[in-house]
């Protein structure tokens, strides 16, 4: 029973990490290695808004999400747009941005265990004899709501449809009057906002530490690769697959192996089926 509950929570966590990354990668084929950095950055923005400026908590959450979205768009407009399509330069440039953000946060002095965000609702309840924090339930609910929202957003709004068009065939989308650069900026902004949302939901469960930026990135990549590119269903399913696999290894093998599972998942998927479990689009291009 506890495997089921904690597996679900862990899976939703992974899905939250990965959705922003999957959105950016699906739309503009940009592996945004700064995703983890944006995640941590938004946490610190919210923390500063609450503790330094003394704003109300919900207000600072909204503020952090907006600022992170703007920063993400600015990163794209200033740097990444110039290396678009050069896969390796994209990776190097976005990774350099991630390093710059994370290490300057560390230099400013955000380190140690002293930075925490308050939970939305304190206290805990018990499901089937296992005690669960309300915050964890909020995470699961918000994750489900987010997936549902994204499903409607990409099917019934103009921007969402345009994003999907870009993801499926950029040239055809261009011919139909969709500006690919604008869409890529929108995607990057939305992706950053999703990173911020994930951070603000999940960070109250622990401390804000700079190092988690790197782990979030690895987990997001793992989920996206296992799930397949441009496939929402795939990303969510992969999150559950990896989430439960992690919890099972923690229970039966030990906590050390949690990261090994994610890394192994990446390597095995890329070797055996590089297009991922649910992606069909790029299979021919990736393999010789």
């Amino acid at each position, binding site marked *: 029973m506890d495997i089921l509950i904690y597996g679900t929570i862990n899976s939703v966590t992974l899905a939250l990490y990965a959705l922003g990354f999957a959105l950016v990668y699906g739309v503009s084929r940009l*592996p945004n290695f700064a995703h983890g950095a944006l995640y941590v950055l938004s946490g610190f923005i919210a923390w500063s808004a609450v503790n330094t400026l003394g704003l109300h908590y919900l207000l600072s959450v909204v503020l952090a999400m907006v600022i992170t979205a703007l920063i993400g768009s600015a990163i794209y407009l200033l*740097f*990444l747009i*110039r*290396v678009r399509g050069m*896969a*390796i*330069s994209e*990776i*190097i*440039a976005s*990774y*350099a*941005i991630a*390093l*710059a953000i994370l*290490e*300057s946060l*560390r*230099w400013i002095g955000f380190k140690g265990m002293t930075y925490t965000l308050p939970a939305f609702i304190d206290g805990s309840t018990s499901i089937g004899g296992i005690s669960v924090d309300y915050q964890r339930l909020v995470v699961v609910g918000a994750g489900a709501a987010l997936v549902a929202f994204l499903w409607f957003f990409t099917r019934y709004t103009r921007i969402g449809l345009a994003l999907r068009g870009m993801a499926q065939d950029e040239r055809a989308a261009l011919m139909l009057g969709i500006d690919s650069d604008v869409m890529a900026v929108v995607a990057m902004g939305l992706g950053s906002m999703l990173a911020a949302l994930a951070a603000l939901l999940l960070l109250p469960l622990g401390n804000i530490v700079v190092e988690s930026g790197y782990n979030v990135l*690895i987990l997001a*990549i793992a989920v996206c*690769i296992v799930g397949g590119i441009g496939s929402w269903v795939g990303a969510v399913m992969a999150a559950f697959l990896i989430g439960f696999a992690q919890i099972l290894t923690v229970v039966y093998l*030990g906590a*050390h*192996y949690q*990261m*090994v599972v994610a*890394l*192994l998942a*990446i*390597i095995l998927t*890329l*070797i055996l089926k*590089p297009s991922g479990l649910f992606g069909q689009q790029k299979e021919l*291009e*990736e*393999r*010789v």
Partner: protein
Amino acid sequence: MSPETPSRRRERIDRGIKVRTQGLYALMSWRELCYLILPRLVLIVGLLGLPIMMPGMYWKRVISIVCIYALLAIVFDFLAHFVGLVSLGGAFFVGTGGYISALLNTKLGLAPLICVPGAMLLGGALCTLLLLPCLPLRGVYFAIVTLMYPLLLARVIEALNIIGGTDGIMGIDSFPSAWIEQYLVIVLVLVFLFGLRRLVNTDLGLVLRAVKDNDQAVKASAMNITYYKALGVFIGACIGCLAGACLVHIYMWAGISTFALDFSVLPIAATVIGGSGTLVGPVLGCLILVPVSELLRDFGTLRIVFYSLILLGFTVFRSEGLMVYGQRKYHQFERWKSI
């Protein structure tokens, strides 16, 4: 309405001496010979003279580290621009080579000068074997796999607590003398630099470059591209493992930190700054980057910020790199032409 048309444009022309030195006629005059030899001589004499010019043990150690990073950067450049495999796994080669050399030294009691070549061949073979299933992957996918391999190995060593676990392997012998330690790496850099430059111009190098440019065409010529890719990776992995083995014997310690991301990222930064696709550029980049990052050590993590900003700037705004710029200025001149 119409934009103002410029009345002149700049054109770029090869220097006469560059054209004259391309063939056998270069041997006819001292001037042409000097034009050819001078840049190479500056590099060789400069590298060999560095330890004599540098004061103190500290900077001598820095030069050794520069050379080790330079070996890795050459490997990255070779694999990325001549074989077409972008390997972000410098740390994978360093770690494998380092651990093998450390085990050969501590468990079998072999001398460092035997361990290092042993680790080079064994490590090269092992890395090639592990990377073999990934070879059909292209571009970003190969890059991500190679980035994950060292992370995975480090976590596995940590989790299983094998070969030293988190403490690493201690008590590894150092090289017989400080001068051997110093000059071994420098000579290795020079040997592999000029060796690889020669290799990419042989028939084998031609095939490797063809695999990079158009693998389908190579396949259509009835050549086994997996074999050639594996060969390229083996050459690269051997050099990378050699660098790792030297590093372990210089520090007299092998641990999980040999799988650290530094060994993957810094060589790439050096290649981008020095000029990719030139093989000399990465060495130049390391000669600039590593000492600069040593000088910035007082600033703590700010040094990583500086250095990632430099990397970002060069990648996004000046992607040709210093060496390509330098070569262009050396071989060509520019002039205005009226139109």
